[in-house]
């Protein structure tokens, strides 16, 4: 079973110290929700955990080994959902993700539709479907429920639960309460 451990993470963005001495531990099946006001560093922490933003100090360990030592290998553990959907307007929904993942987010009826014709909420669901289809152990989600209707939020929570039951881990920044069991909260 995997274990992600962050010890005293500090991160600069430009000249500004955004994160200072952030520590947490996340076991397999765990979910960590990042909270904090706008600009508190939630997205920065997610980007740092993904290896996109470099650490100024501290250590990030995956199964007690330096996670950021080999970034391409670390990337293979991560399913990323940023605040942008990374949806290509010219491709159809089915060209973004497999049919099963589309069904999981209720987009099967739109499979052959070019993504430029999807609404903002549907694009978000498509981005979530890509995460769900990835089969990677660590989900890093930046405001995953933005633009989702109530039914889509429930589908998303079901996907999270399935992922956790399979030993997956989730770290999410969100202002919306996630109705999941065993949620740990890290306030920045």
């Amino acid at each position, binding site marked *: 079973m995997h274990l992600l451990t962050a010890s005293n993470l500090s991160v600069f*963005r430009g000249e500004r110290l955004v994160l200072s001495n952030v520590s947490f531990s996340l076991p397999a099946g765990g979910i960590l929700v990042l909270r904090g006001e706008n600009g508190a560093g939630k997205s920065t922490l997610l980007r740092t955990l993904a*290896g*996109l933003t470099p650490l100024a100090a501290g250590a990030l360990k995956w199964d007690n080994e330096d996670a950021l030592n080999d970034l*391409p290998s670390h*990337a*293979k553990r991560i399913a990323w959902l940023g605040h942008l959907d990374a*949806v*290509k307007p010219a*491709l159809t929904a089915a*060209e973004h993700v497999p049919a099963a993942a589309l069904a999981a987010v209720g987009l099967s009826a739109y499979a052959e539709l070019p993504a430029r014709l999807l609404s903002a909420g549907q694009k978000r669901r498509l981005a979530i479907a890509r995460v769900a289809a990835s089969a990677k152990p660590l989900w890093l989600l930046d405001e995953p429920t933005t633009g989702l209707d109530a039914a889509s939020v429930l589908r998303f929570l079901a996907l999270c639960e399935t992922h956790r039951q399979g030993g997956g881990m989730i770290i999410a920044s969100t202002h919306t309460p996630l109705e999941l069991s065993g949620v740990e909260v890290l306030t920045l």
Partner: protein
Amino acid sequence: MIALILRELKLSLRHGADTTASLLFFIIAGTLFPFALGPGPTTLAAIAAGVVWVCALLAALLPLDRLFGADYEDGTLDLLLLSGLPAYGVAFAKTAVHWLTTGLPLLIIAGPLAIMLRLPAEHVPLLLLTLLPGTMLLSLLGTLAAAITLGARRAAVLMPLITLPLMIPTLIFGAAAVTSAHPSAALYMLAAMFCAALPLAPLGAGAALKAAAE
């Protein structure tokens, strides 16, 4: 990497207007010279190789601002950097796609354009031979410039300002080889520049991509 190249090729086909615009620019820019200088075959033949080279160089610059720009704006760049490929691998894949969708079509059209500009037929194969590494070099250096200017204000203006000076040696040797009595030296220089840029440009572009994603 193959999967990334295929996906990018599919996207390029869906945005076929970008490639078409480059090719049309190449043809139109080339055809302006006879209008400006007159149709005299001697004059045109003397400048044909240089005109084709310069027009190809400028035409290949056109799609560069969208090479990473669209991915940067829609969040795909993060996914590319988290794809498990090293950043230089992502840059190399983008370079390959740029050459396949822009450099190669330019190379194919360069022959007829050169003949229209009265380049002697026996010089056309040599022109194409020089444009082969030349367009590849342009894709490599253009990708580097596109990555460096990613996220910068006025990136579309900065990119040619970075790429064009870097391409001057290629232009000199490429155009000279076509009309030279002994073209092998210039061809060797082109090959050497390509061999140097092949590993270095993706490495530099990869570092720039990571910096842009921070």
